[in-house]
């Protein structure tokens, strides 16, 4: 029997205070697409970093075609035949495609030669790419192509892909899958990391499930249901948020022809965004990362100013107001980036409670802060939203992603918003916290608030939203009711093909 391409045996990696991987064992065969499944924090990233030579495991061995394999640097892993496409891209915005590719290679040919090969390989695999373009100007899908081409040029035997589809539209996912199947047909192996079960079921023939750093299951995903895989991954029966039928009330948030320039150099400016949200309604805004989500949140929170008439709260023009004036009217927001935007990492939860709660919760009088009140507000958030922390004096950065997100969302919800806008409310959050957050959003809408959920997770939007709109290149499609919407229609909306005016496309 020939040995497997890569055999991982008893791998353990301990960080101070955390066991990231414990006794992980599995094999990847030649020409196999192997899925590594697990929630955020299950230890998937640590594991692939060890395979790619970015970290060294404390214990355990790896065998490459039967030979000991212990890479101490990515260069060695690449020389062996391992290539990796990162979840958060390892790209350089201010450099062109060819330079970016060259940086990922150990012995790059001269740039001109490389550019020719990039064009050739990218066409062969159906991933067209212009080597002279600046990476900062590329879309998320195109950026991923740069990463993939970079790997393919090294002729890898094993390609590691870390959450590759989280930034892609359904159509782009199809293109990617065609490429991956072509690679498998060439006899290459792929280690595919994801928590999206449908993808794994359509692509992979073997799956290893990780939970809290340990292997908790092995399966042939084609034989399993998405639900059984999910329960293996989460380790408990999943609670699906409950949603009573919505009865839309009066108009609370109106956005009309909102156009603002992006404050960041490679950002996306908003172009003529219009939408309305009524009391009791949840509007889901989908879209691939970098299509204007941050800018939309900024324009709604007041961090980016707009013409007064472009944003209306219950009929009043508020586009020219700053964040605190909007808060006073009941328009509250929770940005995507928890550390550094929604919360200050090195400040205590009490101080972070003051960050947005200062005026609405009357934590400040005549400019002077009442720290006692701020602390009780923080404690209230911690208690009501089940934030796991020793107390309000703890620094925000010491909390896990899920706990901090519960704190951030809870901080806004407890201020009784009439409109709440959240961006990526459950990104990087464990399943139970995600379920709790979604339930809280539903409850808020039920209680009569208008809620806007901006998310790249379509499943999430379909679960909570009444209406769906898509952001593409800074433009927003007209919202459509979620009920009866098919994946194909959503894909077209995300790709910008759907203008929403008529159903010509369908």
């Amino acid at each position, binding site marked *: 029997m020939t040995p497997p391409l890569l055999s991982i045996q008893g791998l*353990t990696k*301990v960080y*101070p205070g955390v066991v990231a991987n414990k006794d992980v064992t599995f094999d990847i065969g030649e020409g196999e697409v192997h899925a590594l499944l697990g929630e955020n924090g299950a230890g998937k990233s640590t594991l692939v970093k060890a395979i790619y030579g970015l970290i060294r495991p*404390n*214990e355990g061995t790896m065998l490459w075609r039967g030979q000991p394999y212990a890479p101490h640097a990515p260069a060695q892993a690449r020389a062996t035949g391992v290539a990796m496409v990162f979840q958060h891209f390892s790209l350089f915005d201010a450099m062109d495609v060819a330079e970016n590719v060259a940086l990922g290679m150990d012995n790059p040919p001269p740039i001109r030669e490389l550019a020719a090969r990039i064009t050739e390989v990218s066409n062969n695999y159906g991933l067209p790419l212009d080597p002279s373009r600046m990476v900062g100007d590329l879309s998320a899908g195109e950026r991923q192509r740069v990463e993939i081409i970079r790997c393919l040029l090294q002729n890898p035997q094993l390609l590691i892909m870390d959450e590759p589809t989280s930034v892609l539209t359904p159509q782009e996912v199809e293109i990617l899958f065609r490429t991956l199947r072509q690679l498998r047909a060439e006899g290459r192996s792929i280690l595919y990391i994801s928590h999206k079960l449908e993808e794994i079921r359509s692509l992979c023939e073997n799956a290893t499930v990780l939970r809290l750093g340990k292997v908790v299951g092995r399966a042939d995903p084609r034989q399993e249901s998405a639900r059984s895989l999910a329960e293996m991954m989460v380790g408990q029966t999943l609670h699906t948020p409950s949603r009573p039928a919505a009865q839309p009330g009066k108009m609370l948030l109106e956005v009309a022809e909102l156009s603002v320039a992006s404050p960041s150099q490679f950002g996306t400016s908003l172009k003529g965004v219009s939408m309305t949200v009524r009391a009791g309604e949840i509007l889901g805004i989908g879209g691939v990362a970098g299509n204007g989500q941050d800018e939309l949140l900024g324009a709604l*929170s*007041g*961090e980016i100013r707009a013409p007064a008439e472009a944003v209306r709260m219950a009929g009043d023009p508020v586009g020219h107001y*700053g*964040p*605190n004036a909007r*808060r006073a009217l009941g328009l509250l*927001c929770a*940005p995507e*980036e928890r550390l*550094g*935007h*929604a*919360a*200050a*990492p*090195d*400040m205590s939860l009490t*101080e972070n409670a*003051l*960050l*947005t709660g*200062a005026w609405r919760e009357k934590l*400040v009088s005549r*400019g*002077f*802060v009442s720290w006692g009140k701020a602390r009780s507000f923080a404690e209230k958030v911690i208690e009501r939203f089940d934030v796991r922390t020793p107390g309000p004096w*703890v*620094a925000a*950065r*010491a909390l896990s992603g899920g706990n901090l997100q519960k704190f951030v969302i809870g901080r806004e919800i407890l201020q009784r918003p009439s409109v709440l806008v959240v961006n990526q409310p459950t990104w990087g959050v464990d399943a139970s916290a995600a379920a709790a957050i979604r339930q809280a959003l539903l409850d808020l809408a039920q209680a009569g608030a208008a809620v806007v959920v901006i998310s790249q997770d379509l499943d999430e939007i379909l679960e909570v939203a009444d209406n769906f709109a898509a952001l593409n290149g800074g433009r927003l499609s007209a919202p459509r009711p979620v009920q009866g919407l098919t994946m194909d229609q959503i894909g077209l909306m995300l790709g910008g093909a759907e203008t929403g005016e008529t159903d010509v496309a369908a």
Partner: protein
Amino acid sequence: MLRLERRPSPSKAWNYATPVVAVLLTMVAGGILFTILGKNPFEAIKLIFWDPLFSEQFAAYSRPQLLVKAGPLILIAVGLSIGFRAGIWNIGAEGQYIVGALCAAAVALAFYPAESVLVFPLMIVAGALGGWAWAMIPAILRTRFNTNEILVSLLLVYVAEKLLAAAATGFMRNPQGAGFPGSRNINQYASAANHEIFAGTGLHWGGVAAFIAVLFTYIMLQRHILGFQVQLAGQAPRAARFAGVAPARLVLMCMGISGAFAGMAGMFEVAGPARLISIDFNAGYGFTAIIVAFLGRLNPIGIVLAGLLLALTYIGGELAQFMLNLPAAAIQVFQGMLLFFLLALDVLSNYRVRLFLPQRATSEGV
């Protein structure tokens, strides 16, 4: 092998301990430096840190000097600390100090020789306004044109120094000074003079102003929402905008406060210890105040202690210069090393240092 590991929360204990350890390490390193210079290190350290306060021979003269020198350092440093907390780097306090002094002297010279109780308050206002205006140049350039305030404020120090030279040799020169550079002696003009308040203490009105500034800053940072916004802007600028802090307003406020404080320090100096506008009027207080601000952990109370300590090194340095023939620059090196050690030790507040023994690591894991 040593490795750094980020702490989940910054260590409070190290935050307080690092300045003390830094001072001790600087004494050791300074001792080595003095040995290299051929001086007895113990004698030199004692002369710098002990004798100015406690020796029978020098204390009578030196002790009052402590407040004379600490006053401007503390006043400038508390102003700077507000901006530093917000990530706004005014490093041109020396220039604002000079311009403040020039404006105050201009008021005094304009009124001379008329006596009025209004002259002194007017000079304070002029000094503060002068420093404020000089600081507004980098502030407005930053908010309007996004120009780096570090470079502009620093370059303006050189401009201010030239302006000072022009004043001392030109438009402010004492008409009765027999052609020597330097203005009239403001300290001898009763309405404008900044005298000692209690004889023998060295406390002049600048010390009082420093005390009020410390109190003001303490309350603002601890209790007022502005203080919270300043810290927020320094630690997480995006979160600050989310919290409704307007970055431009913050820059103007922080630069303005620090400029006004530095300008006032210049005013008290020119009307007091320095006595007049001269070419070498500025003694580097604006730069030393940066060290004071950091050594005091940007905390008003800490700055008072740090200001007293740095004032001590000035006085002790002069003493050592006089007694041991120690070069004047040695004390500057000493102050520079203090800042190095402080910055180096700061790592302990935010990181844990761990000893990793590669061979043992595996056996421990069993």
